[in-house]
């Protein structure tokens, strides 16, 4: 039972990450390979604030949000002059740089040794320790992320993002500063990813840089693409598919070394199949084929 609850918690955290990325990739049409980096910023900030300053879980979450928002500007502001493939490369570069900082700033992050003994969350005096409690918390965080993204998507702000995904030139002739919308979308997306990162850190109680690699960012992007960008259920479906189906490989009886590699092949094959036969994803609104 604990195993199933663990999978549900992971699926909820990945749903938060996929939904947060969907604001950028699905609604604004900005592909980003740095969501794991923002998740890592949230996780490390929250963990360090709890361990070094004794800050509460929610205080740590807030710290993670602020840090990720600030760092998002490091990507988005220089990227205002970039589009398409070049913007993707910029986000990729940020992801790689941040991983290396986490891995090499030993005094702060303990590098590859990671941070241990991260306290489990205490919210309004209630300690969340059981798996069922974490399921509720992870589902609440995913629900909050979903609420924020869809509230924005259904607002005039979201209308501009949808327009921007098709034609950045046109919206400038409509008195809209495309860069402002791009920077804001990046910031919100990063902040929401940081919330998921904080929860992850306080759930597993141990983090190291390998949890926030470029492969994780690609996995989160795959969830959006496979589920369907810009749709209400797309990122949720993508996260559930990519978290649960590889777990099924465990029950085939393959050696774990083979199963791990098979998982990567599974992601790759699924992405190729989706791009060829269903570019809008399983339940998506937009494709990336334009």
């Amino acid at each position, binding site marked *: 039972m604990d195993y199933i609850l663990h999978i549900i918690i992971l699926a909820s955290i990945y749903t938060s990450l996929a939904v947060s990325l969907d604001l950028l990739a699905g609604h604004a049409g900005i592909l980003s390979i740095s969501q794991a980096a923002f998740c890592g910023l949230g996780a490390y900030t929250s963990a360090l604030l709890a361990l070094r300053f004794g800050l509460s879980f929610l205080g740590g979450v807030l710290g993670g949000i602020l840090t990720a928002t600030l760092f998002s500007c490091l990507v988005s502001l220089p990227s205002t002059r970039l589009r398409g493939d070049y913007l993707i490369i910029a986000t990729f570069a940020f992801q790689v740089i941040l991983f290396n900082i986490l891995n090499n700033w030993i005094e702060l992050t303990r590098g590859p040794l990671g941070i241990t003994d991260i306290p489990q969350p205490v919210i309004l005096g209630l300690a969340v320790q059981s798996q069922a409690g974490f399921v509720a918390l992870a589902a609440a965080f995913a629900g909050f992320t979903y609420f*924020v993204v869809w*509230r*924005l998507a259904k*607002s*005039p*702000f*979201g*209308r*501009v993002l*949808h*327009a921007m995904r*098709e*034609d950045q*030139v*046109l*919206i*400038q*002739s*409509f*008195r*809209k*500063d*495309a860069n402002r*919308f791009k920077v*804001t979308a990046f910031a*919100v997306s990063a902040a929401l990813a940081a919330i998921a990162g904080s929860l992850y850190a306080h759930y597993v109680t141990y983090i190291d840089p390998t949890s926030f690699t470029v492969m994780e960012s690609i996995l989160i992007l795959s969830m959006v693409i496979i589920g369907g960008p810009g749709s209400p259920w797309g990122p949720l479906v993508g996260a559930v598919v990519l978290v649960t189906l590889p777990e099924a490989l465990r029950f085939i009886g393959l050696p774990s070394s083979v199963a791990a590699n098979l998982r990567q092949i599974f992601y790759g094959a699924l992405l190729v199949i989706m791009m060829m036969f269903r570019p809008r994803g399983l339940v998506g609104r*937009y494709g990336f084929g334009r």
Partner: protein
Amino acid sequence: MEALRCDSLQKTFDGTHALRGVTLQFPSTGITAIIGPNGAGKTTLLNVITGFVRPDAGQCFLGQHVISRMAPHRISSLGLARTFQDLRLIQQITVLENVMLGRPNQRGEHLFYALFRFGVKAEEGRNREGAMRLLQFVGLPGKADELAGELSYGEQKLLTLACCMATDAGILLLDEPVSGVGAEMAPRIMKLLRRLRDDGKVTIFIEHNISAVREIADVVIVMDEGKVIAQGPPEEVLGRPEIMEAYLA
């Protein structure tokens, strides 16, 4: 209405001179047509005025503002709106949403208000009503809920005009508003341009359709090889045989 003028504009693309010292004072009322053969620099001039292309030299002024180094959204905030030759519209949203997108200074476009919605619902209601009035004006009220990409070419031209008007700009720059449309649509668009003039809007448009220019323009500017070669009332400019023969035949 603030006067729009250009002073010694120059622009080169890969060694090709698109604009060669263009100096122009646009009339501050009525309809002005810019004509000339392909490659004359008409669209480049429009792109420079609206900030989408930076000139190599020279300046554009809107009243007291120097606009030739401003970002496009800042220029449009000063009251300049434009359409594009390649009919830029947001294809995957509805006709109504396209027009609403054009409305300036929307509170709900700011993150705080988009999240907390203070006054946004009422503003959206007003914007929707305003957008419907504009769709009524251009004759597309029945298409409000259709996707913009599903409209015919002529209807898309009408929609670009409605979007342009939604910005509340005083000066409209239209790139070939009647070119390529059917015989029934062209008079409809020209009628709309006349109504805009009657409402006090300044319209500057590029056009190849000379009969349309003759019919509605108050002033005609002729360009060739990146230079302005004639400017004046249509009956005078279009009556000059050398212009008609050399550039418009």
